[in-house]
């Protein structure tokens, strides 16, 4: 599991690679700290290289969204494959995030 964060066009972009399971979640949470702290910039979660996500990962995504929302920050998800998208749909999170290609 590898998490990379960079700025692009005034947005914070987080790129996830590999399996975001319960074992990988604590490290990933650390890596995502800048997303929680940032202000005024939209966040893009790039999932095009994400193979797997469990409820621990979903919890992290939800945490980003919860901190961003009061600040008026938009959180976009891009490049998510159909299986993962299905998990989002199952849990109802698909309604909370904005999806981008």
């Amino acid at each position, binding site marked *: 599991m590898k998490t990379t964060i960079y700025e692009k066009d005034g947005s914070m972009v987080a790129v996830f690679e590999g399996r975001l399971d319960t*074992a990988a979640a604590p490290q990933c949470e650390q890596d995502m700290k800048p997303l929680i702290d940032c202000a005024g910039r939209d966040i893009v979660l790039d999932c095009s290289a994400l193979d797997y996500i469990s409820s621990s990962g979903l919890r992290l995504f939800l945490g980003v969204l919860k901190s961003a929302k009061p600040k008026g920050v938009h959180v976009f998800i891009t490049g998510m494959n159909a299986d993962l998208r299905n998990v989002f749909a199952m849990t109802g999170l698909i309604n909370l995030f904005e999806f981008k290609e």
Partner: protein
Amino acid sequence: MGIRNRMNDSVAFRTTIFVVFVVGLILSVFGLWQVHQVRKVMVDEVHRQANRSMDGTIKVIDDRISDVETAVHTAAAYADLFAFDDKDCYHLLERLITHNEDIAAVTLLYRENYFPSHGRYYAPTVYDDPATKVLQHDEIGGPEHDFCYLETDSNWIYTNVKESGYWCLPYLDSMSTKRPMVTYSVPLKEADGSIYAVLCADVDLMWVKTIIDEAKPYPYSRVSVISRDEQFICHPDSSCILSVNALQLAREKGNRKSVELMQRMLRWEKGSDTMLAPPHVLTDNDDMPKDEVTGNQIVYFAPVERVMWSVSFSIPEREILKTPDQLQRSMIYFLVLMLVLVALLLFFVIHLHLRPLKLLADSTREIAKGNFYVPLPVITTRDEVRHLRDSFEEMQVSLSRYVHELKTTTAMKASMESELKVASDIQMSMLPKTFPPYPERDDIEIIGQLTPAKAVGGDIYDFHIRDEKLFFCIGDVSGKGIPAALVMAVTRSLFRTISAREAAPERVMTQMNEALADQNESNMFVTMLVGVLDLPTGRMRICNAGHNVPLIVSEEVSSMTIDSNIPLGVMSDWRFTSQETFVSPQTIIFLYTDGLTEAEDLEHGQFGEQRMKEVALRMLTENDKTPNSLLEGMDNAVKAFVGDAEQSDDLTMLAIQYTKEHRDVRLRRELTLPNDVQTVPQLAQFVDEVCESLGFDMSLTMQMNLALEEAVVNVMTYAYPKGLAGDVNIVAEANDVRLKFTIIDSGLPFDPTAKEEIDTTLSVEERPIGGLGIFLVRELMDSINYERIDGKNVLTLRKKLTAIPQ
């Protein structure tokens, strides 16, 4: 017909008929009595008149006969002046005939050989020749004259006339006129008293008829006079005169009464009698109109004693009663006329008075049609009809008010009924009603049936499968109808809610009891049976709250042995106990309410447990062991038993058959992990291998991975509190039908299935961070099942194989 009926039904008609009848009856009786009185008076009057007339007639006849007697006696007194000379004697005779007009002829009959010059018989006679009206002298003595032989021996004169005068029997004149005559004879005596001659005066009796005819009281009266030798001196038929014997005539032509009458007359009695056609006054060939003398005749009779005659005359009764009959007739005419007038008047008057009633009736008919505001007829009089009209008006007002109220009430009732129907529908919809309920499952078959006694009932049955456990219940709320139905609805909700998180029946029951017993002011209670059948293992736990013990139909039929406890809602803080049993495949668990065993026939006999068991046994012997046939057989048996009796209680049956079959395990892998979430990748590898050997695609493999990770992480997190080490054993098994993961740990008792489900519709702010794990497991797997077995938590996840893997 219609008009006649209407007439008969009309008060005016009936009253008129009645009054006319009564008045007619009274007047008729009075009239008849009056006529009768008049008749009596008339008859009395006629009687008196007739008697008087009779007396007068008798007196007149007697006077004239007496005159003849006196004249003859007077002549006899001075006869000696003339009689001794055969020529001078004519002076005597002439004087006698001249001075008495009733005497037609006078004869002096000398004793034999009194004047030898005249031979043996000398009888000088003087008679008034009716043709010339001149006195003629003649001598009628001698054999050439009948006179001497009138009475066989001429001596009679001397013997009969010895003392004084003698009236002979009437006879017919020997002359051509043949008139009835009678002779009065007086002896002429010499100084020594010897009779030398007899002075005879012949009296023409034609005047008798004249006198009687004049004296008869009615024009149609008949008269007759009978002499002492029973001959007619006078008779309406002149041919009868002195030729017919009256008594013989009566015997021949008359009836018994007329014979009696004749006998009385010949005894010279005076009197009267009534009879039909007495022959002595009525004959066939008299010259009077016959129609006037038909019917009864009143005959008056009296004797003329001097000559021993009997005078009689008859009066037709009809003649007497002519006047009263006329009176009667005119009275009848008058009566009829009067009755007709009274009837018309009465009918008119009653009709006039009843007219308002008819109008009122018309209004009533209008009101009956529903037109409550029709105006009533105006009645100006202040009589009973007005009173009726006023009362009617009051009735009209209250009727319209009442109908209005009734309409409101009916509408309310209708809405209540429709609500009741809705309630019944809602209640029925609460019950599982699609059978078979789990067509996709091959381990369970269920059928249930509830027949409420009233529209809504107090019985309940329910079942659902959660985490490979069948939760079922059957219950009976005390009472029937809506209150019971309400409690039933509450009970059902409680069962569903509590059994969604509790897997032990005694805990479900205990919590339901707490809820129902709390503030149970209406003191309703529920007998109930809650069971949990673990479908993978066949382990069944049942908790009974005072309900009928279920029937177990395996190879034989038996009742389950379970604690009764107490019904729900009776007492809080009761700790319910449950019993456990293993159900072998194909066994049927039959649950029922007392509506089955206590179903009553017309004689109030009960269906009973024995019959119920017999039905189950029959099904066993017929080798048709399915819940459907058991329920159907039971239903038919109850219906046949109850017959036409009304269903007294709700009847509910629930039959559950455990149909699990043993299948060969095709694949078995096992993995044991320590209590550390960092071992999750190992788990992922294990799942990948299992999925790969089953030929799952990427997508399904990812889902299995996700489900297993969530389940195992959950166990690691909650079964083993922080710092506590332990193992989690994961077994993957697959047969032809499904893949099963069994996760076993020795940690604290922890049932992840009891966790409440998350709400996926909440917004970001409301959405809790955690709780997604078990939710995802449920979503991804077909079933999740938890059992605590031998101090271990056993969590089973199943996924049906959609296609047969290679």
